[in-house]
């Protein structure tokens, strides 16, 4: 074998990464327990080295894929001479071994960014954080070096390969959905490591909570994006005209999102009031564990799902790793969290209060967040139960079954609406105070706005009770959040005679992180809005049409104009053309199609969608009638009201994150605190 072949180089890089992660993790432990500066420096360099070799291995694999080097096993699995270069790059994550390598590469990026952002700050925590983060890296490097080795040398390379899964090369969204989801999944290892670091160091002063929360916020945002793009991909590619089906693998990405969202809120209570500490730590650790479980569910082939196109032997290895991380988390919490109590005790004595002062009060923000947290935890738990139940029954009774959508809907609906409602209640309540009059003053108008909003849609004909209830909570939450911004702006304009734009920018700068959070709330409201209307008012019908025939569907008149064959080089397609007219006005021609890939037996059906803000018209081919000369086509038409608004949710959430994380100017920190001046923040201020 050529010593400079890609296989050899790739394996070399992976083994170097494994070595650096192992020694670096050990050095991190030494640096943490003995405050050994040389060990710390080594751990840091090893972390950078791990990142470099992992990213290098990924680039090498991309090179092999683009140059079609069939002496590399992974290229023989997913490459083909007919695959265009861009799709070759994307096929890095189109199959198991490549996606684990890609996972390792992203871990490399996160490791480097974590080390870089910690710098010389947080000296007590940083070595421990690296110790845990690199220990996680050991596992993935080991996986890539052993059971999921993509660089395996093929002694007699074939002339050509099968090419990537056609479902993956059928739409540009496949180039962005997996990386986003991976950035979310992999990134959760960072907050996990930082939480472990606090427990290992036996300290948790509030200065550490900032980085932990920020490092949760970043992967959480990618996860939000990844979930939304996955829904969009499903909608635009799979042809059933929906974004979410409670598929086990979809649920797998939803569990960590739920616990992560709960963490982001309970962490505020911890920062501000010194309460809910252990609960917050548990949520953070659970989020990481759930991403591991999600990867296991996606990649082990235990589930029958459109996502589990690969089945492999990494399942058991992954299960062992999940068990180890779970045990480690439990033990760490059991044996170390009392140290944090002692610390809290000292801090409380030094500032003369316990837990930030103030008694408990029903109408305070921390109670609202506690309620919200319970709802999120229930949501995560019930979805997890429904997802894992078929597995449990199969393992214990040997029977195969599936849990259908009704179960998930029955839980998701009330919990989702409850959470949406709390999204309006929380921001309107003050920290640590009980002020029923103020609460009524703030929430009263929001209730009115909610009723008016629901009434507006009701008048348009959307009168199903649950849709109206959803619309009410949306209006309520929307106003409650907006009010938090509008009221201080109005107050400034009146009191200081400031022009509106100046008042707005000053209010905004004062509490930027809060408004970042509210912006994320708006994003979620967009999603709830789209889901409520599509769920309640979707219409679908199959039509058998001859050329020239016109049918009425929803408010459209659709004419079948015949089909054509298209040759695009790497694939051929049959495109059926439909002329659409609405209220006498020409809308356009839409061409749902069947794509044929040379290496695949089965055609891939691609829908055509007419997108409008008030609803999508969706065409999906069922049969193009090649056996009757294209005279008869069978097509499914779907009307999805207000579908488009779902796609806006993730960008708005990301904008909110960006607003929150944008580096502050020097003056910042004190000014960005809560406008309620008497609240003494946190247990360790």
């Amino acid at each position, binding site marked *: 074998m050529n010593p400079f072949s890609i296989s050899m180089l790739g394996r070399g890089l992976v083994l170097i990464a494994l070595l650096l992660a192992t020694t670096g993790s050990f050095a991190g432990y030494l640096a943490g327990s003995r405050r050994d500066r040389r060990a710390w420096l080594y751990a840091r360099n090893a972390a950078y080295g791990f990142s470099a070799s992992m990213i290098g291995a990924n680039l090498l694999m991309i090179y092999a894929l683009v140059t079609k080097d069939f002496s590399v096993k992974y290229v023989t699995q997913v490459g083909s001479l007919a695959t265009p270069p861009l799709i070759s790059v994307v096929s890095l994550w189109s199959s198991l071994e490549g996606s684990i390598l890609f996972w390792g590469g992203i871990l490399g990026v996160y490791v480097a960014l974590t080390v870089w952002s910690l710098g010389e700050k947080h000296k007590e925590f940083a070595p421990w954080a690296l110790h845990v983060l690199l220990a996680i890296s050991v596992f993935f490097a080991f996986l890539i070096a052993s059971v999921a080795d993509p660089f395996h040398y093929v002694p007699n390379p074939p002339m050509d390969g099968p090419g990537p899964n056609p479902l993956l090369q059928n739409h540009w969204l496949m180039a962005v959905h997996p990386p986003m989801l991976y950035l979310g999944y992999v990134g959760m290892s960072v907050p996990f490591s930082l939480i472990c670091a606090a427990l290992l160091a036996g300290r948790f002063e509030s200065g550490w909570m900032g980085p932990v929360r920020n490092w949760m916020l970043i992967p959480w945002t990618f996860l939000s994006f990844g979930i939304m793009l996955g829904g969009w991909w499903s909608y635009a590619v*799979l*042809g059933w005209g929906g974004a979410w*089906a409670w598929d086990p693998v979809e649920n797998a990405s939803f569990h960590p999102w739920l616990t992560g969202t709960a963490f982001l809120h309970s962490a505020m209570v911890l920062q501000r009031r010194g309460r809910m500490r252990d609960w917050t730590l548990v949520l953070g650790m659970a989020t990481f564990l759930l991403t591991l479980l999600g990867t296991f569910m996606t990649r082990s082939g235990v589930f029958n799902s459109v996502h589990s*196109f690969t089945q492999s032997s990494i399942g058991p290895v992954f299960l062992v790793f999940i068990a180890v991380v779970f045990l480690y988390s439990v033990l760490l919490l059991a044996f170390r969290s009392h140290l944090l109590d002692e610390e809290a005790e000292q801090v409380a004595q030094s500032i003369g209060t316990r837990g930030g002062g103030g008694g408990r009060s029903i109408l305070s923000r921390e109670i609202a967040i506690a309620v919200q947290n319970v709802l999120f935890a229930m949501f995560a738990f019930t979805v997890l139960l*429904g997802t894992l139940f078929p597995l449990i029954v199969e393992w214990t009774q040997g029977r195969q079954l*599936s849990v*259908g959508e009704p179960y998930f809907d029955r839980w998701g609906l009330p919990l989702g609406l409850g959470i949406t409602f709390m999204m309006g209640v929380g921001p309107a309540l003050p920290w640590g105070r009980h002020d029923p009059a103020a609460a009524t003053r703030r929430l009263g108008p929001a209730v009115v706005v909610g009723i008016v909003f629901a009434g507006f849609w009701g008048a348009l004909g959307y009168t199903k009770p649950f849709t109206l209830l959803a619309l009410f909570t949306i209006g309520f939450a929307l106003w409650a959040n907006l009010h938090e911004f509008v009221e201080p702006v109005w107050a400034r304009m009146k009191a200081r005679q400031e022009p509106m734009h100046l008042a707005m920018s000053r209010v905004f700068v004062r509490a930027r992180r809060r408004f970042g959070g509210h912006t994320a709330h708006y994003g979620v409201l967009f999603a709830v809005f789209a889901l409520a209307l599509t769920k309640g008012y979707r219409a679908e019908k199959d039509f*058998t049409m001859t050329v020239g025939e016109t049918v009425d569907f929803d408010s459209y008149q659709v004419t079948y104009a015949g089909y054509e064959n298209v040759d695009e080089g790497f694939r051929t397609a049959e495109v059926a053309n439909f002329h659409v007219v609405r209220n006498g006005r020409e809308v356009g021609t839409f061409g749902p199609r069947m794509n044929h890939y040379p290496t695949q037996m089965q055609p891939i059906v691609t829908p055509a969608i007419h997108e409008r803000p008030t609803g999508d018209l969706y065409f999906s081919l*069922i*049969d193009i009638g090649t056996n009757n000369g294209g005279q008869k086509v069978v097509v499914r038409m779907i009307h999805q009201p207000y579908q488009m608004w779902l796609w806006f949710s993730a960008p708005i959430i990301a904008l909110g994150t960006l607003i929150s994380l944008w580096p502050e100017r020097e003056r910042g920190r004190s000014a960005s605190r809560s406008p309620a001046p008497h609240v003494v923040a946190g247990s360790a201020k």
Partner: protein
Amino acid sequence: MTDAMKKRLFGVGAVTVALAALGVIAYSNLGDSIVYYLSPTQLLEKADAQDAVVRLGGMVVPGSYKWDQDTQVLEFDLSDTEQQVHVVNAGNPPQMFREGIGAVVEGKLQADGTFHSSKVMVKHDNQYQAPKGHETEGVYANPTLDGESS
């Protein structure tokens, strides 16, 4: 035992009890959402199979496929090599449906021995391969992805 430990123990206990209660409620809620997978042999063995909605998985027998595009009714036989069941599906076949592939249908067995289904799901796979025997495992598209017939 310190106060803090008592408090924590109480917290852990409360969360455990709450989760257990939620688990019981959710479990009892699963009931009508559960659909069992059966092979044709298993289906015909079960005397009471006519009452419940089940999923039936097997291979689409070559030569048995009939689809009327105008009435939008699909008929075919599903086999696990030992037994076969005639399926009448109210609705069109999903995109990749053809003879010889693995398919799963959801519906009820009728008294006359035919299986009336409302959903057909097919196997999405890179390479074409016929399922072996009882195998209903494998990679099926989600029910709603391909199969739902209205």
